[in-house]
């Protein structure tokens, strides 16, 4: 009895502790390939410390033009390792036509006697085009002499980029203007594990004899195959690994039929001080070291998409998504590396005087990475988008406020929630349904006991211009009465176990199966499942939420699928794991796009993601805790995701777990109003916290945050448009906007919305009465609410802002014109013809610019030219603030397009000019005087900007016009 109690009691106690279960997730040393490949670095470091030699065993032969790519900038080198002279590899170097000179390098085993093949389809899923166009060989300078190859390339005739390839030992350096930017295999850690038969060395043989007969047969074969003559010492480089062919962890066994097939990459960035990227991690934006004396973390950054329960606010542990991309940044240059790998990957980062060094180890797949040349972060965004595509323009409603909870339990409750928002005069666009809407968690099938008439409910919601989102998770209840299951089973599109039978596991639904969305046979079928003919109880007002798509398997290792599960093409789950969630997201997004004719903009939220997921919709950062440290840590996560394309991102406002205090909730709503994706969500065990439930003053603070989001929707729409057209993030970290300001490189607790000049910093400390904000631009900054002016300064500076609970830092950088809609309706779609306010924040030279992009927010007509895109400019025309504000087309478009006509009557109701030093004598539009009010500036220690407010100037937002301000 005692023993039993001793065993159970701690378990029971553990239930109440809100913390990640470290023991449920592996550390590097618990993972065979990571332990094995990471140890190469340890041996290299030891050798360096001891002053002994350590040189890469790999070397290249002479290059040839890659077969089949005549007259293109692509060369293939034979690659060999002195450890395994009989094994052949190829290394291929491409210079791409797009993206200012992106170089792609691939390596794979060739002429292998093995039946196995390395996974080579990551590019197919991550990139828009798995084989992007190559530069023409005539456009680059290629030279090869004596074990050295040099390729000069880059945009334009200057060709300031060079790839210097040292053949032996292998080293590849990307240079700009002669300066080393990226050095591949700088530390000689590059390694590709070729396929091998299971070998038993002498030490193991005795042990092997005692085991089963089959394995001793294998051993005999292996011994016969092994060339007896050579006895190469590999121990200085390669570590023996008893788990190489089979790995146990807790109660799970990974059969690893292919044996070791990992690879190790080392990249150094000699001119970088900071490295960003590798989302998704709850770590600072500027990734701290994971090794060495200054190591901030003890473990490498891990990319292995998992359903992690109550994750830590500051940790390199794997979360729900993975983008194997880094930005290495210094004052002069920024370069990027995109490593196309979908298998489990761990990355060590060290910061040294010689720059930033990284070591990547992955479990399987070919070597396939791209070097993005920069030279600035903004260029990297464009280069990355040229490879992975840009995000889609989201539907308008998706940029507004979403109300979610696990769960709104009944049809009546859904209506009640939106009615309560109306009563409380709080805007709301989307009400969400978590898993309980579905009968037995059989997604698609409404629980009619609680949702007797879903269509009626959807129509009622839509009648007020609102939308709904319902969850459809990838686990499918394994029961013959469920059409989705029987369909998928009969179509034979389920993920298989290692023995090729259908895999089943446990999730919300109980015993479940998973559709293999890598299988093209599943695609049309899945699309059909969402068609209004098939899913009759849905409507165009219903959108989709894809959760649990890492995938989450409750009884699987690390709460996901066994790695030896089999996907389409015979690939193992280990090969494709990190891509898996994106496949599901992709197919759901497609289904939602095509279900209506003409097609409408889809909206699908996903938890898991990979490089390229931004093409398919939004993500949120999973099951956060309602604590101050989570609120504080999230800003960095948003920024880290954003620079890797995953910019339509947000967190559960209020925190998924726990019951936030009113103060914390207010701060979270203020932060949420500035997340690209703004959704409140809560666990089923939490207290209700819809914003209308609170007493004053909390209630008003929450309403203010919601209203501010709605007023600023045009600012957000502009930023989403830049993301959709240029691949820019919706929110910008400091280093990306001010790449030369070293003081801002590590800043990850404040950010700008697009190019709007709007700077936001969430207040994330309990009881904070003031906040410090870092101002980088040599421009005046204006408090968004016109309360304060912060003078321009050539030097970046910190300012302190009072932040009682109803206030937070929100500033406009001088030189920008910010369009807003100050009439907040109950839902964003009802604001389509409301007038605009233009806030002109004068720069220190007295000028300012801004833009406004508008389309119907719903259809794909914008891709057919139905939009308006205006450019606003304020130019000084004389002394004492004389100037004119003008509106012109920002890009060439047909001003008479249907949308432009539809909103031709939409006016500008107010122009606010901030930073105006003297009262204008008149303001005129087309010669006619218009009314205005002038407020004098306040000088001194607490300056307030001078301000001109022009009332009803009689101009239309879509038209060309000039407003003349006379001194």
């Amino acid at each position, binding site marked *: *009895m005692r023993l*039993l*109690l001793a*065993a*159970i*009691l701690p*378990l*029971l106690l*553990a*239930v109440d502790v809100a913390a990640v*279960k470290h023991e*449920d997730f592996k550390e590097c040393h618990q993972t065979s390939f990571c332990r094995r490949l990471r140890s190469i670095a340890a041996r290299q470091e030891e050798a360096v410390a001891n002053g002994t030699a350590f040189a890469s065993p790999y070397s290249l032969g002479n290059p040839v033009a890659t077969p089949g790519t005549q007259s293109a900038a692509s060369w293939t080198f034979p690659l060999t390792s002195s450890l395994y002279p009989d094994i052949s590899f190829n290394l291929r170097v491409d210079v791409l036509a797009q993206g200012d000179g992106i170089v792609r390098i691939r390596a794979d085993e060739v002429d292998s006697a093995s039946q196995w093949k390395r996974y080579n389809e990551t590019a197919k899923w991550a990139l828009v085009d798995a084989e992007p166009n190559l530069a023409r060989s005539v456009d680059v300078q290629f030279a090869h002499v004596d074990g050295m190859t040099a390729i000069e390339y880059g945009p334009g005739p200057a060709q300031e980029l060079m790839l210097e390839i040292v053949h032996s030992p292998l080293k590849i350096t990307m240079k700009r203007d002669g300066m080393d930017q990226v050095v591949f295999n700088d530390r000689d850690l590059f390694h590709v594990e070729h396929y091998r038969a299971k070998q038993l060395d002498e030490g193991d043989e005795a042990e092997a004899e005692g085991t089963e007969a089959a394995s001793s047969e294998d051993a005999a074969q292996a011994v016969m195959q092994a060339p007896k003559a050579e006895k190469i010492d590999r121990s200085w480089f390669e570590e023996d690994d008893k788990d190489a062919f089979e790995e146990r962890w807790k*109660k*799970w066994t990974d059969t690893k039929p292919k044996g070791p097939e990992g690879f190790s990459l080392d990249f150094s960035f000699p001119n970088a001080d900071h490295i960003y990227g590798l989302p998704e991690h709850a770590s600072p934006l500027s990734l701290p070291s994971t090794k060495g004396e200054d190591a901030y973390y003890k473990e490498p950054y891990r990319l292995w998409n998992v*359903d992690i*329960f109550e994750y830590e606010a500051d940790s390199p542990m794997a979360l729900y998504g993975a983008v194997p991309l880094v930005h290495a940044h210094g004052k002069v240059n920024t370069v990027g590396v995109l490593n196309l790998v979908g298998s489990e990957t761990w990355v060590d980062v060290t910061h040294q005087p010689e720059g930033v060094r990284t070591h990547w180890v992955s479990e399987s797949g070919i070597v396939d990475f791209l070097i993005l040349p920069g030279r600035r972060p903004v260029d990297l965004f464009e280069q990355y988008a040229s490879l992975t595509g840009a995000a889609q323009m989201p539907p308008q409603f998706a940029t507004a406020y979403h109300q979610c909870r696990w769960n709104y*339990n*009944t049809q*009546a*409750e859904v209506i009640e929630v939106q009615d309560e928002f109306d009563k409380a*005069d709080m805007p709301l666009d989307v009400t969400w349904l978590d898993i309980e809407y579905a009968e037995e968690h059989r997604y698609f099938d409404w629980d009619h*006991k*609680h949702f007797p008439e879903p269509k009626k409910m959807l129509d009622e919601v839509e*009648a*007020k*211009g609102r939308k709904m989102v319902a969850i459809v998770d990838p686990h499918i209840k*394994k029961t013959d009465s469920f059409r989705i299951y029987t369909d998928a089973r009969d179509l034979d599109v389920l993920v298989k176990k290692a023995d090729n039978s259908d895999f*089943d*596991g*446990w999730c*919300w639904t*109980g*015993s479940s199966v998973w559709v293999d969305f890598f299988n093209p046979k599943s695609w049309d079928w899945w699309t059909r499942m969402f068609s209004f003919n098939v899913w009759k109880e849905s409507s165009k007002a219903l959108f989709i939420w894809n959760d649990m798509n890492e995938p*989450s398997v*409750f*009884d*699987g290792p690390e*709460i996901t699928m066994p790695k030896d599960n089999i996907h389409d093409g015979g690939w193992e789950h280990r090969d494709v794991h990190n891509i898996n969630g994106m496949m599901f997201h992709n197919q759901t997004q497609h289904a939602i796009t095509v279900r209506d004719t003409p097609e409408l903009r889809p909206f699908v939220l996903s938890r898991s993601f990979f490089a390229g997921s931004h093409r398919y919709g939004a993500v949120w950062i999973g*099951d956060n805790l309602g604590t101050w440290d989570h609120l504080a840590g999230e800003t960095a996560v948003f920024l880290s995701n954003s620079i890797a394309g995953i910019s339509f991102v947000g967190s559960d406002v209020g925190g998924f777990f726990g019951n936030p205090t009113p103060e914390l909730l207010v701060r979270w709503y203020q932060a949420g109003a500035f997340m690209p994706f703004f959704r409140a969500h809560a*666990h*089923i*065990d*939490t*207290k*209700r916290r819809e914003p209308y439930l609170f007493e004053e003053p909390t209630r008003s603070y929450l309403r203010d945050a919601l*209203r501010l989001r709605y007023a600023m929707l045009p600012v957000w729409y502009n930023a989403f448009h830049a993301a959709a057209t240029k691949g820019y993030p919706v929110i910008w970290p400091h280093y990306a906007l001010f790449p030369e300001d070293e003081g801002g490189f590590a800043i990850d607790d404040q950010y700008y919305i697009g190019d709007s000049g709007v700077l936001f910093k969430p207040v994330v400390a309990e009881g904070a009465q003031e906040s410090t904000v870092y101002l980088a631009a040599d421009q005046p900054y204006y408090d968004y609410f016109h309360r304060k002016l912060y003078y321009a300064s050539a030097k970046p500076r910190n300012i302190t802002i009072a932040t009682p609970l109803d206030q937070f830092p929100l500033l406009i950088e001088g030189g920008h014109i910010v369009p807003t809609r*100050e*009439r*907040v*309706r*109950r839902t964003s779609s*009802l604001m389509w013809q*409301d*007038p605009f306010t233009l806030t002109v924040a004068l720069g220190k030279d007295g000028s300012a610019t801004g833009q406004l992009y508008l389309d119907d927010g719903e259809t794909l007509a914008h891709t057919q030219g139905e939009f308006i895109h205006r450019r606003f400019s304020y130019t000084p025309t004389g002394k004492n603030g004389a100037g004119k504000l003008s509106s012109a087309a920002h890009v060439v478009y047909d001003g008479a397009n249907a949308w432009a006509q539809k909103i031709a009557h939409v006016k500008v*109701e*107010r122009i606010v000019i901030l930073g105006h030093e003297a009262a204008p004598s008149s303001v005129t539009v087309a010669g006619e005087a218009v009314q205005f009010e002038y407020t004098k500036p306040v000088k001194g220690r607490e300056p307030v900007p001078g301000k001109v407010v022009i*009332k*009803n100037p009689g101009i239309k937002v879509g038209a060309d016009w000039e407003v003349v301000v006379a001194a």
Partner: protein
Amino acid sequence: MKLVPTLFSLLAVLGAASAGDVRGVDPAVAARYVPSAEGTFACLDGSSVIPFSAVNDDYCDCADGSDEPGTSACEGRSAAYFFCWNRGHIPGKVLASRVNDGICDPECCDGSDEWASGACPDRCAEISKVHREKVDAEQKTRRTGAKIRSTYVSFAQKEKTRLEEELAAKRAEVADKELEVEEAKAALDRAESQSRDAIERKKQSPLYQSVEKHRDVVKRLKTDVELLKDDLKTVLDLLEELSKGYNPNGQDMAVKHAVINYKELIGRVEVPETPKEGVEGEEANAEAQVEGGEPEAAAAKLNHIRNPDGEIPNWQVDDVLRQDLEGLLVSNDGDDDDDEDGLLYRLEEYIPDSMFEYYDTAREAIVSWLTDFGVIKRKQVAADGPHVATARDKHRAAERSLTDTRSRIRDIETTLDQISTQKHYGPQGEWKKLDGTCIDTVAGDYTYELCFFGGARQKSNKDSSSNSLGSFAGWNTEGERGSYGYYTKQRYRNGAKCWNGPERAVNVELSCGTTNAILSVTEPEKCEYKFKVTTPALCWPLEGDKPAPKAQAAQAQDAVKDEL
């Protein structure tokens, strides 16, 4: 509908309307919407004075938004709302943000707020008709309900009368019974005055001392064992609760392991639908599987764990502890005089009252055992023992009877108090009728039951499982005691604890209806339920109908007070 203008304000606006006709102005303030001599308008909050032309010019000039009653320009400001006349129906108003948003709000059935969008036709006639029908139906319900309620009231009156009569009778009995107790006590005291010293001498023997020590040890051991059993029960109950109420919230491996190990322990391991490598999932469908499995076997196993074989049964230990050592002292001197045997019987005099019942039941067994072994002689039993015992019995019975009567008096007083003074049963005691009445409804997989003033339960429709949702804990804490609002909510609290959650609770929202019925059950927060319930008890008579007999009730209350 939020605003029902008074006759005065209606008159006021008629004047103003003829003067200005400013769109959307509330008649209550229409007089202010007339240009001043200077052609200005003063914002209602007095914050500024603006040209009258700026009223309804689709630009917000006033801090309170009062200059734009007819547009959405001042949306979000305190005085920014649009007044709709809704001719043929009740006037209403909408927030400025609703003006010309293309949505037809029921508050503006005339569609006047959508003057620019033109989206909404005048539906007031239709809406008014529906509204009137609704009001009529409500009134009808109220009248019918009030009749039923009046039967509740008369029930309460009768009950009150009955209780008052009983109270008077019981109070009369008290004096007699007090006297009886006194007499019995005197008789007992006399009986007890006989010797009780003899035994003290014998207790000094070493053997007796040693036996007492042993018994003390046994007693402490027993306490230890009981504490351990309590702990074990707590843990097993916890686990049982966990395994039943296990909520698959999240993939918490610790919980899963706990449940699995527990089930293994009690031998309740299910065979999953399909053979599985892991066992994590089992508890997820444990509930379903347990039904089909062997719950009795599991219960037996559980019982075995709680009370393993080979354990000394409780009664054996108790016998040792309860063994009458003094009695044995006496029996050792078996050949002593009869007084010693009598002592055995007199021992009951030293048994504390709380132990008396146990002793009483065991006595026969002990006596017969002692007799069988020849320790005492049966015939001696009747000798003189009953002398004290009888006196004691009599005294005890008299005391009990007095206590019972007093307790009944307190009960009656409380009930009478609840019917009247404390308004527990409503202003006219009408809820008394419903005390103990149970109603139920089926919602989803459960039947929900509410017993007024008792408890609420959730019963599974699939099996016999059932959870308490709480016991009556009071009326609406927000309403003033005795007011109508006070009786529109009942709170039921301290139900069965939810796994990883709070104790279940119900908020009952009551309204007038012709039957006692649960209209709906929702769970706005986990384990916190909301019942919407109708009852005639809340159908207070309509004004103009027969007035509530308040005076009568008040008199009754006073009468009770006087008697206290």
